[in-house]
């Protein structure tokens, strides 16, 4: 009895383990398929060569026949010899036939040689294709869905960028490259933009790409909009006019001077609206784009894999470094939530590329042979803490200024960011031409001045190192962080305590962060924002951006600042806009609305075998159309 009871349990365990082992081979089948496909191509070329060879053989046989005929004619001629002119003529005819046959044979031989060469080339191509290999991208979080139009998270968009294409592409240094549009012109009032579309482009399902498709895509903005980039575009979108098969004009209800930048985000890529409608709820799981890679499979909790699109021959060379097809045969996004495991997987070669390298891992990774670490600046609002003017004690500008003088950014850069990201001075990162360096002179680190300002504001230092006002209230500074995004907050807390703040850190996470900071006003909420147009600063400081789920988490509500930001967002003259932006930066720092901390940098680490990936103007998205792995 007892023995019977024990054995099944162990037997079940053993069987399950064996099951696990049996499931192992799965990963290789798809790779085998692609190799088989390439080999089939080579085989076809080989067959062609054989056919040509056969043709050449036939020609050679014809030549032999002609020679035999000639010989027979000669013989007949010799026999008839005596001045028989008819025989002479026959001989001449036979000789002509031989010449003809010889030429035909030669031609056939050449054709055979050519076919042989084609076959060899095809074989070489196959080998080259295999050399492109499978690139594995180690990503920290699984995307939620892959319909470009509905893409919200950066993880969604990192994958979307490989499957879909945008009308224009934003390269490093904010250069606009052609994408699905080859020409563009912004209306003089910046309320319309006309695009000349690329011809000969098809979607992965074979549907053609043309003006009508573009119209259908943008008209999705008139319906229910859930993606972040789409929501941005939907704000002022009016209509798309089809001018001809390959020309469209988009119109807007307000000036949109930055429309090219907005349309270059992966979330603004052109989708196949008809296919999306047909797929219904599955659209997010079965993406159909025009890009260098075709969606292959999504294994929840493990990976997404994409296959090279053999039809993608319209790549923009100035951005991708190739016109296509993609060099890599397959691109896999492997979800690896743990930072340390992700790093380990790069050094074991299980992945070829990883993003978002934690700052403390940069130096150790740089030490490893065969791995390159590269940082990219992310333009936008630097990592900052808002200093909310809406509540006491930070409603007093002297307290806000005291905070700015009490914070030592250089120490934060050194201890928290390992010297790998530069300190920030204002609300706009120095990547922008509109950056005004005057802000660098505003608030030097000066704890004594900070103390004087606080004394002057009526906050006196107690025996416990905390300042209080006449009413006995403590000098409160609640620093709120979005978990794992704001690693400097504890050092900030320490620095503020030095000058007598009763500083504490409150942690929220993910969706809860923007809920909590929207509902409650805190003295020091942490924030950073990535964007490619300086006028986007509006969404970080405008009063319309206050509330749960919004990103003006400092609750900055200043009509003068609103007016400046509004003016900047519709100003179409770049020179005039730069002046407004300069005023915005000075105003925000004059009012001491933020403590700038660092300019955000994201570090990528990749195998030295990987080359040719392109990085967009935001520094965040990597494009693998031109990337390959050397063996």
């Amino acid at each position: 009895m007892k023995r019977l009871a024990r054995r099944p349990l162990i037997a079940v365990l053993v069987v399950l383990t064996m099951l696990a082992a049996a499931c192992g081979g799965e990963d290789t089948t798809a790779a085998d398929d692609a190799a088989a496909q390439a080999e089939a191509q080579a085989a076809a070329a080989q067959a062609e060569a054989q056919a040509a060879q056969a043709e050449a053989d036939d020609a050679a046989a014809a030549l032999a026949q002609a020679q035999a005929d000639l010989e027979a004619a000669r013989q007949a001629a010799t026999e008839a010899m005596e001045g028989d002119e008819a025989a002479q003529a026959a001989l001449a005819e036979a000789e002509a036939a031989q010449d003809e046959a010889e030429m035909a044979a030669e031609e056939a031989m050449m054709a055979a040689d050519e076919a042989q060469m084609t076959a060899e080339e095809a074989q070489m191509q196959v080998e080259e294709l295999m050399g492109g290999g499978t690139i594995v991208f180690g990503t920290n979080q699984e995307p939620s869905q892959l319909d470009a139009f509905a893409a919200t998270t950066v993880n969604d968009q990192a994958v979307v960028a490989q499957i879909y294409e945008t009308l224009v592409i934003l390269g490093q240094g904010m250069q606009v490259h052609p994408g699905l549009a080859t020409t563009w012109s912004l209306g003089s009032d910046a309320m319309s933009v006309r695009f000349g579309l690329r011809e000969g482009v098809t979607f992965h399902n074979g549907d053609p790409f043309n003006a009508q498709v573009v119209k259908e895509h943008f008209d999705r903005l008139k319906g229910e909009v859930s993606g972040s980039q789409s929501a941005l575009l939907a704000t002022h979108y009016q209509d798309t006019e089809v001018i001809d098969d390959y020309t469209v004009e988009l119109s807007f209800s307000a000036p949109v001077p930055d429309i090219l930048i907005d349309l270059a985000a992966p979330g603004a890529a052109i989708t196949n609206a008809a296919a999306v409608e047909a797929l219904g709820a599955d659209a997010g799981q079965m993406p159909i784009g025009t890009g260098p890679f075709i969606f292959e499979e999504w294994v929840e909790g493990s990976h997404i894999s994409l296959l090279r699109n053999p039809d993608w021959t319209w790549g923009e060379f100035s951005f991708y470094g190739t016109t296509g097809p993609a060099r890599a045969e397959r691109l896999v996004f492997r979800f690896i939530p743990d930072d340390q495991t992700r790093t380990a997987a790069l050094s074991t070669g299980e992945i070829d590329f990883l993003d978002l390298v934690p700052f403390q891992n940069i130096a150790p990774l740089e030490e490893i042979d065969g791995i390159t670490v590269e940082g990219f600046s992310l333009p936008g609002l630097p990592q900052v803490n808002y200093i909310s003017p809406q509540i006491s004690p930070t409603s007093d500008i002297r307290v806000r200024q005291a905070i700015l003088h009490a914070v030592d950014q250089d120490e934060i850069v050194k201890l928290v960011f390992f010297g790998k990201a530069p300190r920030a001075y204002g609300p706009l990162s120095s990547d922008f031409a509109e950056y005004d360096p005057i802000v660098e002179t505003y608030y030097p680190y000066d704890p004594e001045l900070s103390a004087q300002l606080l004394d002057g504001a009526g906050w006196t230092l107690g025996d416990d190192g905390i300042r209080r006002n006449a009413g006995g209230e403590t000098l409160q500074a609640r620093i709120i962080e979005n978990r794992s995004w704001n690693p400097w907050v504890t050092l900030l807390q320490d620095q503020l305590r030095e000058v007598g703040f009763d500083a504490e850190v409150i942690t929220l996470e993910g969706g809860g962060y923007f809920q909590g900071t929207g509902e409650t006003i805190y003295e020091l909420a942490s924030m950073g924002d990535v964007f490619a147009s300086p006028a986007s600063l509006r969404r970080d400081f405008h009063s319309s951006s206050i509330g749960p789920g919004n990103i003006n988490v400092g609750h900055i509500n200043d009509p003068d600042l609103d007016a400046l930001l509004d003016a900047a967002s519709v100003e179409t003259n770049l020179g005039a806009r730069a002046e407004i932006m300069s005023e915005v930066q000075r105003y925000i720092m004059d009012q001491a609305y933020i403590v700038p901390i660092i300019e955000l940098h994201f570090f990528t680490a990749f195998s030295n075998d990987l080359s040719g990936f392109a990085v967009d103007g935001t520094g965040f998205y990597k494009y693998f159309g031109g990337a390959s792995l050397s063996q």
Partner: protein
Amino acid sequence: MLRYVLGRMTLTVPVLVGAAVFIFLLMQLVPGDAVSAVMAGGAKLSPEQQMEMREAFGLNRPVLVQLGDYLWGLIQGDLGRSTRSDRAVLSLVAAQIPSTLILVSAGMVVAIFVGVPLGVLAARRRNTFVDTLAMGTAVLGLSVPQFWFGLMLILLFAVNLGWFPALSSGGFNGLVLPAVTLGIAEAAILARLVRSSLIESLEQDYIATARAKGASDRRVTWRHGLRNALVPVVTMIGLQVGNLLGAAVVIEMLFARQGLGQLVVNSILRRDLPVLQGSILILASLFVVINVIVDILYKVLDPRVKLGAA
């Protein structure tokens, strides 16, 4: 016997309902909902759109109505739909169960094949250096945090020696490191239990009889002693499967392995409460089912066991 089995299974119904209600109420405490998660992703939604979304997800109804709907759905085998991808929670969860069960089984195999021999060794060489070493190792195995232990295994066997991959994705090779990480703490528990249980049974009269019959020392230990010592051990193994299910969540994240753990964490990050709720409910149900099996096994091993009696 049949009555016992049926009775035991009936008892699981209130437990499962209780678990479902508890998990549902717990979800109400999570800060932020699906709408705020979408907005945290950068989406700008007007208050009207937010209302519409809450309406569509049924988030604006009274909690008790939502609970009633949820339970009614459960009875029909409907765990709801993901707020992110609109796919059925049941199919999302079902897709992850095999991977987690394989990992848990492999962890159990490690626990048994390391823990039992270690315990027997320690019992046979009681109070010797071997015993101290074996039990010292067991205490170490119990006290080392799994997460750290797993990282050390990755560093040693994946990065330095290159024997196994750091990432676990199906296949036997990828299963070794996570299974060892998962099983080692349970092996330590088993070793200690086997040791004390075996020592106790080796002191019984029938062992003396066996020895008197002239049975070899090995035979006495393995056939006579261990067989009886295993009764509590088998019970423990059943309970440990529950522990392993919980620990698998952490291990799956560490080794980037498919499974319920990844699903739980992803659905927390996405505030996809129906999926989170469904995964936790399935984990709880697995635990309950395994306990029922253990109870039934226990009855098989020891006919004196009765329902409700101590």
